[in-house]
């Protein structure tokens, strides 16, 4: 029997039993949505449709409808791509890395974080698609046999690495998520009374029975998938960073990019999980499971990764001067003082300075400040990618090539649209899926449940 120290805060509050956990988690699935859900859903659908319209307009007329030009060939498209991929990193990190580290607090948040990952990666994958001049030729990035026989793709290209990385990451995350969902779908299936939902959850639960051997395999698969997903999380955002770092462009070409992008991805991902779960725990009445301690743990991850990102910013800034390379030095001077200084200032403020408030216990345990700070981080991380992409491109080697980037309504529309689509998916998820990992929560009830901990402490 595992022992848990008495000084650890309980992770499941209140007088919970196994059955009560089932009841609490299944309630949103079995009950009816309230009017706030419908209002939020309607807004999300409208925004999503507007985004889809902008995407179709882009595909119909050409990339020229964005604010890009010869100097700045990537801007909001790749900024949004990297931003969404970054957000998509927390889910797998929570489920994989924290599983390897045996962090029990992950069990209350991993399901939603993984759902967020999957939806965020879907949004991310959209951008490399629509940013192509000829999207109808997108399948050419796969090494497929063709009429030229030996015409293959270029395995030297970081964009091709991206193709492999993103598709691996998306599909493995999906499988990881779904394998965890199967037993929980079975729970809903066995409780369902309406024939339609009974049938739907029967199909979704793949005929899960929960016998001893199945659970052994389940645990082994979760562990090995976690072991595979952990380096995968590192590799995916490293490869995304290599889109920039392999180049020769000052401001892009720096060796710290891969680990720093990974830290930044975890940082922004946790911020987004925080934003979503602070709402979800309230709306779905999950305060006993997503406790203040959970919020505090996530805030600690945010402040640590935020500080790592801060070290990386300062390292880059310092080395750009130390290197003695004129272009590098100028690229960073220009970031801080050039025409996009406000983007750099926003990035520094939101990503490095503001999260430092989480060193104070009161702030990291307060729901309101956590929510506000998480929004700041989300904004800051978008600016980080904007700074890296646009400010590095708009001023580089030859002054005659310098230019500016101004977004058009299509740029803005597509970005907002992806946020809309993301929320449509997340809202649907919160209605039809068990938002907490039922089976995992039950397995820690006796070691980390409030009532059981008190019981242990007394004897």
């Amino acid at each position, binding site marked *: 029997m*595992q022992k848990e120290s008495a000084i650890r805060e309980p992770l499941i509050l209140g007088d919970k039993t*196994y*059955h009560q*956990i*089932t009841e609490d988690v299944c309630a949103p699935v079995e009950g009816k949505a309230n009017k706030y859900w419908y209002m939020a859903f309607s807004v999300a659908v409208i925004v999503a449709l507007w985004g889809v319209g902008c995407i179709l307009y882009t595909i119909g007329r050409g990339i020229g409808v964005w604010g890009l030009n010869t100097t700045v060939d990537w801007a909001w498209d790749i900024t949004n791509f990297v931003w969404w991929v970054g957000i998509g990193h927390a889910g797998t990190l929570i489920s994989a890395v924290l599983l390897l580290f045996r962090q029990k607090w992950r069990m209350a948040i991993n399901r939603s974080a993984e759902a967020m990952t999957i939806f965020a990666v879907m949004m991310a994958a959209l951008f490399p698609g629509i940013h192509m001049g000829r999207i109808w030729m997108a399948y050419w990035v796969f*090494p497929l046999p063709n009429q030229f026989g*030996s*015409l*293959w793709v*270029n*395995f*030297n290209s*970081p964009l*091709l*690495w991206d193709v*492999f*990385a993103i*598709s*691996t990451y998306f*599909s*493995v995350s999906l*499988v*990881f998520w779904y*394998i965890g969902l199967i*037993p929980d779908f*079975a*729970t809903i*299936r*066995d*409780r369902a009374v309406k024939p339609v939902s009974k049938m739907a959850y*029967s*199909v979704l*639960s*793949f*005929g*899960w*029975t*929960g*016998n*001893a*051997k199945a*659970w*052994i*395999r*389940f645990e*082994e*698969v979760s*562990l*090995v*998938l976690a072991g*595979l*997903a952990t380096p*995968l999380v590192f*590799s995916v955002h490293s*490869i995304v960073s290599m889109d920039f770092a392999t180049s020769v462009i000052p401001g892009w070409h720096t060796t710290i990019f891969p680990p720093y992008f990974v830290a930044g991805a975890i940082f922004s991902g946790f911020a987004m999980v925080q934003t979503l779960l602070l709402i979800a725990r309230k709306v779905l009445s999950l305060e006993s499971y997503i406790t203040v301690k959970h919020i505090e743990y996530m805030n600690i991850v945010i402040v640590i990764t935020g500080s790592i990102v801060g070290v990386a910013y300062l390292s880059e800034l310092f080395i750009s001067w130390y290197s003695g390379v004129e272009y590098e030095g100028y690229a960073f001077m220009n970031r801080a003082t050039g025409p996009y200084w406000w983007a750099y200032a926003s990035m520094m403020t939101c990503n490095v300075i503001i999260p430092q408030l989480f060193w104070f216990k009161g702030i990291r345990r307060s729901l309101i400040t956590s929510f506000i700070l998480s929004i700041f981080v989300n904004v800051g991380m978008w600016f980080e990618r904007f700074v890296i992409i646009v400010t590095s491109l708009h001023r580089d080697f030859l002054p005659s090539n310098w230019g500016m980037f101004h977004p058009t309504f299509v740029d803005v529309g597509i970005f907002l649209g992806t946020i809309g689509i993301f929320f449509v998916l997340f809202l649907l998820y919160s209605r039809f899926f068990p938002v907490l990992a*039922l*089976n*995992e929560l*039950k*397995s820690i009830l006796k070691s980390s449940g409030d009532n059981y901990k008190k019981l242990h402490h007394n004897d």
Partner: protein
Amino acid sequence: MTKAIYALYDDDEVMVNGAKAILAKNVRIKDVYSPFPIHGLENVLGIKWTRLAINAFLYGFTALALALAGMSFFMIQDWPMNIGGKPNFDLYQNLPAFIPITFEFTVLCAAHGMAITYLIRNWTLPGVKARNPHPRTTDDHFAIEIDRTENAGVSDDEIKSILQGTNPVEIFEK
């Protein structure tokens, strides 16, 4: 004639102790159904640990070899091109650029290979009918399954009385 007798429990520790008591009386347990994994149960029931991890390693290793062979064929043998002066005469000279995809492909195949093996091995696939004996074994109850044919030497009443001695909430046949 029903095939099996079940004892239903409402606590995992009671169930594990029950299983130990049943096995001590030389009654064989066919299976146990629970809403979550119970640590140490495999030792009680004498179930061997799964070898899925070895599977994953083999899938991954195959993928690693395949990725390197594939890239070497595409880039070096089939149509060597001068791409930005990157060396294209030997695999090892251009290897750093091939590492990311090799890694991704290894993880891709290891993860999916293992997941598919897991689903087939468990026989959890879309459309399969659930075989758990009681709907609450996916909620908060734990069931021990005793197969009649496996315990031909023990009468039903004996089995039931042994089960009764382990504090179940319910005993039923199915």
